[in-house]
């Protein structure tokens, strides 16, 4: 099913994992070199940044190729154009397969560029043909249904995480879009259905995650778990529900106005992050913990619409202090390891080093640039993403 030779991929993954062991000081360099030599593969699988370079330039090159094709054919009619898209997209898949196999590519940026472009063109073409065929053109759920099989195929064949995310969202849309277009009563069920779907997909994936035959797709399954938790949270988040409702109905709810069941969504917005974190600690799951932390921050930011409870900037300050103090006390508590929990960095994770952190700090906590004229508030504002007085 999957295009890659998994025996080779597994060897590659062992070598990569061993590199993290070396970086964390678990094995010495000479041992890592030995492992690397024993687990060498002919696969071409470059590091992240080279992958990005290859991806970017492959996309530009593909734009050139497809551009020339379309120039040569010069379709005049819309339907012909759409049909051409499908044909060209379809052919691209064959080329993609050949390139990946002959060049022994594995996540090399090039095949991802080709895959995304091929998927995009083919799906766009099919959807366009559908829109041409129905008059007046109806959107709604059908385009999503049309897109889904190809996305699933792309995700499964290439174990591509981005395509998996796309397929998951598409699948959600297939259920949620008809619901959103129905009567007001069923429409109000939208958040709850979304939450159920998120919950359901999370547990479904959890159940099958350990199975051996799904091993090649474990990263994709992780993405689905992550998105499930996000969907579950968003379905209960007050801001999302309020604004989503307004967008669907086509009007703005005035500031301070409420939606039905507002109280329920306040509770969910506050409690879901807590649930994630508590459960994450119980079953020792990094995904739950980190999603919970991010959800907690988003919940605090959602406070903008709770301003009848407390002013947003006060909420920010208090939340920041609470989070910081919680971390501080946890560090104190974990000075010695407790029941296996430790604060030490046992196994370094890829891409999460101090260099990246420093850059993140400069981007998010750094000052806003000084405009030429005198700024209305104090110049050189650091912190909090260069926030201004108006919020």
């Amino acid at each position, binding site marked *: 099913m999957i295009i890659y030779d998994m025996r080779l991929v597994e060897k590659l993954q062992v070598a990569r*994992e061993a590199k993290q062991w070396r970086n964390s000081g*678990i094995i010495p360099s000479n*041992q890592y070199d*030995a492992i690397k030599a024993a687990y060498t593969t002919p696969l071409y699988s470059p590091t992240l*940044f*080279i992958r*990005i*370079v*290859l991806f970017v*330039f*492959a996309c*530009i*090159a593909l734009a*050139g190729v497809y*551009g020339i094709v379309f*120039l040569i054919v010069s379709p005049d009619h819309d339907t012909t154009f759409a049909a051409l898209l499908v044909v060209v997209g379809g052919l691209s898949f064959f080329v993609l397969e050949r390139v990946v196999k002959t060049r022994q590519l594995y996540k090399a940026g*090039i095949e991802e560029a080709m895959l995304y472009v091929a998927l995009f063109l083919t799906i766009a073409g099919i959807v366009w043909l559908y829109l041409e065929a129905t008059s007046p053109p109806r959107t709604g759920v059908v385009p999503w249904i049309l897109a889904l099989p190809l996305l699933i195929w792309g995700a499964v064949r290439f174990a591509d995480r981005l395509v998996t995310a796309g397929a998951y969202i598409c699948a959600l849309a297939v259920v949620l879009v008809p619901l959103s277009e129905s009567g007001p009563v069923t429409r109000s069920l939208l958040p709850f259905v979304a939450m159920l779907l998120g919950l359901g997909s999370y547990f479904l994936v959890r159940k099958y995650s350990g199975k051996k035959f799904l091993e090649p797709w474990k990263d994709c399954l992780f993405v689905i778990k992550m998105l499930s938790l996000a969907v579950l949270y968003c379905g209960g988040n007050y801001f999302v529900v309020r604004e989503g409702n307004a967008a669907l109905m086509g009007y703005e709810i005035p500031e301070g106005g409420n939606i039905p069941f507002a109280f329920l969504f306040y509770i969910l917005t506050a409690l879901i992050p807590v649930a994630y974190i508590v459960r994450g600690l119980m079953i020792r799951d*990094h995904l739950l*913990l980190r999603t919970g*932390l991010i959800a907690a*921050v988003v919940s605090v930011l959602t406070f903008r619409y709770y301003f009848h409870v407390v002013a*947003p*900037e006060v909420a*920010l*300050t208090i*939340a*920041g202090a609470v989070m910081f*103090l*919680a*971390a*501080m006390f946890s*560090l104190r508590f*974990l000075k010695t390891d407790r029941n*296996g929990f*430790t*604060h030490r960095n*046992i196994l370094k994770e890829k891409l999460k080093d101090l*260099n990246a*952190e*420093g850059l993140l*700090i*400069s*981007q998010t*906590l*750094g*000052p806003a*640039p*000084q405009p*030429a004229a*005198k700024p209305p508030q*104090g*110049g*050189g*504002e*650091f*912190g*909090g*993403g260069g*926030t201004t*007085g108006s919020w």
Partner: protein
Amino acid sequence: MRKHTLETLLKEGLITGDQQSFLSRIYDKSVFSLYYELRTMLYFGVLLFTAGIGILVYRNIDTIGHQAIIAGLAGLAAIAFRYAAKRRPPYSHRETESPGSLYEYVLLGACLLFATIVGYIQYQYGIFGTRWELSALIPAVVFLYIAYAFDHRGVLALGIAGLASWLGLTVSPAELMKQGIFSSEAVIFNGLVFGIVICGVAFVLDRFGIKKHFTFTALTLGSNVLFVACLAGLFTLGMSLLFFPLLMLCCAGGIIFARREQSFLFLLLSCVYGYIGVTYFLSDVLVEAFGIFFYFIVSCGIIIYFIFNYKTFLAKR
């Protein structure tokens, strides 16, 4: 990592029994590290707190409370600096072992509070008179000193960002595009000078072995500004004879550095910025669609071919 993989490695004699048991304890989560989660909490704590304080200070500027707020912040900053100073490792040209995540974020928070207070003092009391930009410069210089004295990369990044802000620049590529930096000649030259100075100082210090772990951060921030300034000069000021060779020089430097340090972020930056520059340079020649598409194919094909087939060129010797 499946259990039997570790067992296989043990059997092949590639890892020892101790390592195997340690690793399996990590993978079955009997040992569970909260390192990244705690650091994330510290980071978000500082982010949210400073955001809130920033707004609070200026919203309450003329009320009775504001003196109290500033005094409170100053007190907090003082406590934080004292905490950090007590745990500060002695100065070394090399990277020192961090006294811990809490130390790092307390120091970061203290610096941000300091900057807020300076900004406020200038706003309220006009201590710098009309030279309000000093309220950006002073904290930046202080940060740079603290970064070296306390060996903190994050504060270094803030310091460099502060210097940029003083010059009317920003170190965020996204912001650079948004701000319409391209318009002013002064800003572009500021950018060039800033970029060259930061990168230059970074190289020199690196050469002398002074805090080599800072080099990457400084170079990333400096080179981004430099690249964008070159492009901006190329786009808006004409002067191709100056900016284009300068851009190419930076790209070459970036690629050489990437190869030397095996840090391919700089390969990415050099390739992308360089390509934008070259394309712009040739844009007078490439007018019709066919030519443009053909150019895309050939140029990108060359780049991909080069990277793909010359791994050895890019790899360490």
